C-alpha cells in the first residue's frame, strides 16, 4: 500500500511541521501550497494513500477541491482528511456531507491528525474487510463509486480563459 500523502496547505510553517510529523510516522509527503498546484499534482502524479486538504487555500479552496476529487475516477475513492484552524460546525458538516473522510482541527503536534491517519490507513487486508462491511456507508467509508467520465479538476472558467489565451 502506498505510503504517500498529498498535503495541500498554504501556510508554509504549518506545511513544514506537517511534513516533519508525517515523515516521522513513515509517510512520504508531497506538498501543494495552493489549489492550482494541487490540481496540477492531481492531474500528473500517481494517486497517493491519502489526501490532506486545508480548508482555506488560495485560488481553489478545500471544499472545491474536495468536490472535484470525489468526482475524479482515479482519485475519487481515496480517503480525504480536511484540516482547518476552525472547529466551525457548519464547515465540518459541509465537509463530511461533501465526502470528506474526516475533519481535523489544527492542534499542537497534530496528535488528533496522526490518530485519524492511523485509523484510516489500516493495512490493505483490513481495509478490504472494511469496504465490504456493513458500516461502509458512513462518512468514514472508503468510497469506490466511479463516474463514467473524468470531470475536470479545473476551477470554473479556467478553460474558457485558456481558450481566450490561445485565440
Amino acid at each position, binding site marked *: 500500500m502506498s505510503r504517500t500523502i498529498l498535503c495541500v496547505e498554504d501556510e508554509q510553517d504549518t506545511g513544514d*511541521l506537517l511534513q516533519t510529523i508525517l515523515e516521522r510516522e513513515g509517510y512520504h509527503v508531497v506538498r501543494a501550497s495552493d489549489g492550482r498546484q494541487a490540481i496540477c499534482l492531481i492531474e500528473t502524479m500517481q494517486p497517493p494513500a491519502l489526501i490532506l486538504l486545508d480548508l482555506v487555500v488560495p485560488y481553489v479552496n478545500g471544499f472545491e477541491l474536495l468536490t472535484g476529487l470525489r468526482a475524479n475516477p482515479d482519485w475519487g475513492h481515496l480517503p480525504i482528511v480536511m484540516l482547518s*484552524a476552525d472547529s466551525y460546525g457548519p464547515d465540518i458538516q459541509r465537509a463530511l456531507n461533501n465526502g470528506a473522510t474526516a475533519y481535523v482541527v489544527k492542534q499542537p503536534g497534530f496528535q488528533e491528525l496522526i490518530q485519524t491517519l492511523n485509523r484510516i490507513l489500516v493495512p490493505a487486508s483490513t481495509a478490504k474487510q472494511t469496504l465490504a462491511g456493513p458500516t461502509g456507508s458512513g462518512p468514514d467509508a472508503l468510497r469506490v463509486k466511479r463516474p463514467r467520465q473524468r470531470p475536470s479538476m479545473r476551477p470554473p472558467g479556467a478553460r474558457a480563459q485558456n481558450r481566450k489565451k490561445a485565440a
Partner: protein
Amino acid sequence: MNQTSPDQPIAHPDLPIVHVEQDFEPLLPKFMTNRKKEVVTMREALARQDFDTVRTIAHGMKGAGGSYGFDLVTAMAATIEQAAKTATTTTIATELELLGTYLDRVQVVFDE
C-alpha cells in the same frame, strides 16, 4: 524569542513560556521570524485599511499558532481575524501591539 533546552535553567521565569517538542526545534526560528514579519505586514495593511490582507494573514497565523502550540498567538490571531471581518481598526491595532510584544518576549522550552 528566547530558546531554552530542557536541561538548562530558565533564564527569565517572568517571561511567557511555550513548550514545544524537541523534534520541532529546527522549525522554530523560521516560525518566529515569519510571525514577526506577519505582524509588520498586518500593521502596514491596517494603515491602508486593507482588511482583507489582515484577515487572510491572521487566519494563517491562527492555524500555525495552534499547530506549534502557541495558544496565545492563535487566540490573538483569531481576534484580529474577526475584527478584520468587521473592519474594527482599534481592536486590530491593539491586538497587533500585544502580539508583537508577546512574540518578542515569549520563551520556548523544548521538551523531549
